């Protein structure tokens, strides 16, 4: 059983919710700051972050990256595929998320 405090909910511009492991979310420095700071962000308490500027497919890709990154660090060095048509949007998201 996955406990609620071990997960984080990321919400896209369209309102789509991605529930991912907290550990995966911490790959992003921006999320790390939001989720670990002492009470100054409401996100810290709710475990929920809204991204009004990131579309659903991009946020999905970002989540995939979080898990891929964890695998990579543990020694499973595979390629991370990025669809050419989403590169620019993904760039902006990666920049914002400091990832």
């Amino acid at each position, binding site marked *: 059983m996955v406990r609620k405090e071990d997960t984080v909910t990321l919400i896209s511009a369209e309102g789509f919710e991605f529930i991912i492991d907290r550990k995966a979310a911490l790959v992003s420095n921006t999320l790390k700051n939001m989720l670990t700071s002492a009470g100054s962000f409401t996100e810290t308490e709710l475990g929920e972050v809204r991204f009004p500027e990131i579309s659903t497919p991009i946020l999905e890709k*970002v989540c995939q990256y979080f898990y*891929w990154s964890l695998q990579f660090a543990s020694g499973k060095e595979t390629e991370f595929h990025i669809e*050419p048509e989403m*590169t620019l949007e*993904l*760039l*902006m998201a*990666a920049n914002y998320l400091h*990832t």
Partner: protein
Amino acid sequence: MGGACSRKRDQREGDLDDGYGGSARFSRSFYFRWPSRNFERDISDEQDNANKAPSLLELAVRETCKNTQGIKSFEKLPRDLTQKILNELVQTQALSRELFQAFEDCAIQDIYLGYYPGVDDSWMEVIGSQKFCLLAVDFSGSMVTDEGVQCLQICENVEIICMNECKYISDISLSYFTGFTNLTSLSFQKNKLITPAGMRHLAGLPNLKHLDLERCPKIHDGLVYIKGLTKLEKLNLGWCNCIRSSDMKQLSGLTNLLELQISRSKVKDFGITFLKDLKKLEVLNMEGCPVTFACMDTIAGLTSLTTLNLKSCYISDFGCRKLEGLGNLKNLNLSYTNVSDAGMVYLKNLKSLQFLNLDSCKIGDQGVQNFKNLVNLKSLDLSDSLIGNHALNFLTGLSKLESLNISSTMVTDMGLHKISGLTSLKSLNIDSRQITDTGLMALTSLTNLTHLDLFSARITDYGIGSLRHFKKLQSLEVCGGGITDVGVKSLKDLTDLTYLNLSQNGQLTDQALEALSGLTKLVSLNVGNSSVTNAGLQHLLPLKNLTSLALQSCKVTLWAIQKLQASSLPNLVIVRLR
């Protein structure tokens, strides 16, 4: 990292040569070059972030750069991202003139296009469109003309301009920089057109800190325009053979100078006297200037000096006397001068010395005796000197010594055991005909060696076996003629080797190449003047990093090499068969 950080501007400014060129040790052999830039970056990535995933930003930048078709403008992206994309495109050489247009008006800060193929005036329009955002620009080695440089006129905040080797840029270009009060660094090396008429405009750049005019043949009498630039810290006039003693007068008030290069200029003793007030000077490079002991009085007063290069100057023992008080010296080059044992006494107390070059000086054992307390020495070059085995007795206490060159001296096998305790040695050159297997075997304790030069030493298969102790070896030269296929087999475990020269060993056959096939880090291989044939080339297939291969006078045809390049060794760009 691929998308290099945009703020690292300082790194791009050419490091002034300290007279100890890092690649000098490879100079005798024909080429040493790393594979393509792409490859270089990947290697450093792996080393820096072992097991750390590339960031999503990095991946997205790379992917963007792979699919640039149809992109009309990057204007909508934040400028730090645009900067990253530009850097990546330049690094992977994927930037075309058309694509560069997409960077118009993108508020980019740093545009480094030095030696990038195809850069001309049309590129300068895009650079100029960054207007006041532009902080650093490099278009060295380009076809840019004065007209192109004019585009920079509106970039009034620019701090760094580098335009070395631009053969169409003349005096008028410098006029476009008028009013650039933020400009701190300007470089136009190898410009054959700029004269005092252009130099005149430098007087209006009061905040210049770095000015690099290396190899400009027409700038004499123009230095009068920089005499008011009192913020100058680094000035390079090296290889400007038009510069004479009288030009030095203009530098006498530049008291903030930290580095001055006048190598191979025509400055004589009289010219050096104008430097007497440059008390902050730390680096003075006057290699090959026609100066004598008479200039040494002035030098003696420059007590901040840490680096002094007097290579090929007419300096004798009498001149050495003046070095006595330069207690801050770390790096001293007296190679190819007339100094002898008598002069070495004055170096005895220069305890800060780390690099000492006495190549081709008349130094014997007695002179070396004065070095025994220079415990901070990291590098000592005594090649082509008169030293013999006795001199090595005085080196035993130099525990920080990392590089020692005693090639072409009278040192023999009998003496080498004396340096066997210098375990910090990384680089050793004992290239001498009288060195044999016996001498080499006395050195097996030097397990930190990464570079070993035994070029003409009479090493045989017997002696080469002792190389297995040097597991960290990256470069090796054994060209004395005594090595056969049997001996090459003992190199098999030296898997860090990147540079290997086995030429002049006529008995080596295809089997030797087979024995080398596991040395996959090899970048350069020389097996010239051996009995290698076309049939042996197949053993080189695993050497994917190979960029240069020398097979002079071997039974190898160009056709066989081309096949090898096309099929599996794309990095192999330098081939020598004759």
